[in-house]
């Protein structure tokens, strides 16, 4: 047991370096996926059939492909050496998450009773004023738990990016194991670190959720 902890202490700084990259990639990827998700959601609720089809096609394709395949294909098949591994990782993860984000945004907006739109429009508000003042504030509140979930999901998905040589937490552990064969120790350390980070994020998301609850019912 003491040896287990000593080894942990010894490798912690290196593992935290890996965690740092994990977090950086996750944060950027989630940020871009939110922007892409909003655009895709706007396309998919637009009355223009062509735009709607494009969004729906994109979402179907991305959601239908395992992240591992998406990463291998894009990194080794398309991106190759045209950019740094970390940038590629962010793009790949953002593409993956954007499809799920789009569905969260679309469902959130569509969950709001259409009567709200009609009431706002009948008062003379424009489409965008209605969205900004009436629909989105209500929709965002519904979306918060799902958005938090997707963010946490994407954070865990960074582990898969070890397959395209991103030096994040999982690959860091793997590399150390290749040297000292301590698979039990190092994979468990990585697991503990992921667990702690995600537990903290989950706790924070609960707080955000509670704070966004206005006196509605």
């Amino acid at each position, binding site marked *: 047991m003491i040896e287990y902890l000593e080894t942990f202490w010894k490798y912690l700084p290196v593992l935290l370096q890996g965690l740092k990259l994990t977090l950086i990639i996750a944060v950027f990827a989630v940020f871009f996926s939110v922007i892409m998700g909003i655009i895709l959601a706007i396309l998919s609720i637009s009355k223009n059939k062509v735009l709607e089809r494009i969004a729906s096609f994109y979402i179907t394709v991305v959601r239908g492909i395992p992240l591992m395949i998406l990463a291998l294909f894009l990194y080794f098949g398309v991106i190759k050496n045209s950019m740094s591994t970390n940038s590629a990782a962010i793009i790949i993860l953002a593409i993956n998450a954007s499809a799920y984000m789009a569905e969260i945004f679309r469902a959130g907006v569509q969950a709001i009773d259409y*009567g*709200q739109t*009609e*009431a*706002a429009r009948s*008062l003379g508000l424009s489409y965008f004023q209605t969205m900004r003042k009436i629909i989105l*504030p209500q929709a965002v509140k519904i979306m918060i738990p799902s958005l938090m979930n997707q963010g946490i999901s994407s954070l865990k998905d960074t582990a898969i990016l070890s397959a395209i040589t991103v030096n994040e937490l999982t690959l860091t552990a793997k590399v150390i194991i290749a040297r000292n064969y301590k698979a039990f120790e190092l994979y468990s350390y990585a697991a503990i670190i992921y667990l702690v980070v995600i537990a903290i994020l989950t706790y924070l998301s609960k707080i955000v959720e509670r704070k966004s609850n206005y*006196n509605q*019912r």
Partner: protein
Amino acid sequence: METIIQCEHINKVFGELVVLKDISFTVEKGETVCLIGPSGSGKSTLLRCLNKLEEIQKGTITVIGEDSSQVKNVNLYRSNIGMVFQHFNLFPNYTVIENMTLAPRTLKKLSKKEAIEKAEVLLKRVGLFDKRDVYPATLSGGQKQRVAIARALEMNPQILLFDEPTSALDPEMVGEVLDVMKSLAKEGMTMVVVTHEMGFARDVANRILFMDDGYIVEEATPLEMFQNPKTERCKKFLSSLSLI
């Protein structure tokens, strides 16, 4: 008398389904016109065409001298026509007073101070001044609908459209909403009311339009319609409500 709404030969189609067939009628300024008829007859759709929540395929609708198909600014057009819905459609994320002041302030019709003062006067009028700062969820159905009426009035509309304003209410709350509507009618507000409240139609309406299957089948004063309906369909409808 000044004609404020004029509909000429309008047709409205949903896909294959023709819901409004050759509808023509006028509403004079200050009049209360009730639309009655069985469900699915096109009453609500007709109402929604008046403020362009629905588009018509044929005919013309002229509101306050403006051809609705030629409207450049649909938002300005709508802000002159208040609408009250069956399900109130108050904004749950805003308080009562915010519900009322949001549109005039966003559209810069009134300053914040003016909007609040006006809203307070209107809230007193519908008897809900003490509910000024609560969220709609804490109100009863009748109170919600009175706030919805006040919210529509805050925009200073020249016409008010009511889409079955009492159909979603518990019976004991119908009266308080109808009372507000009666007092508006008395003051000369132009109102078009889709309703199943035949008592209200009889007492308040200047004219009643009976609709069935997309047509205006009969148009008459309340007295004529309830005492002596001319058409078989209208007779049948009214007798099914055991009113004649």
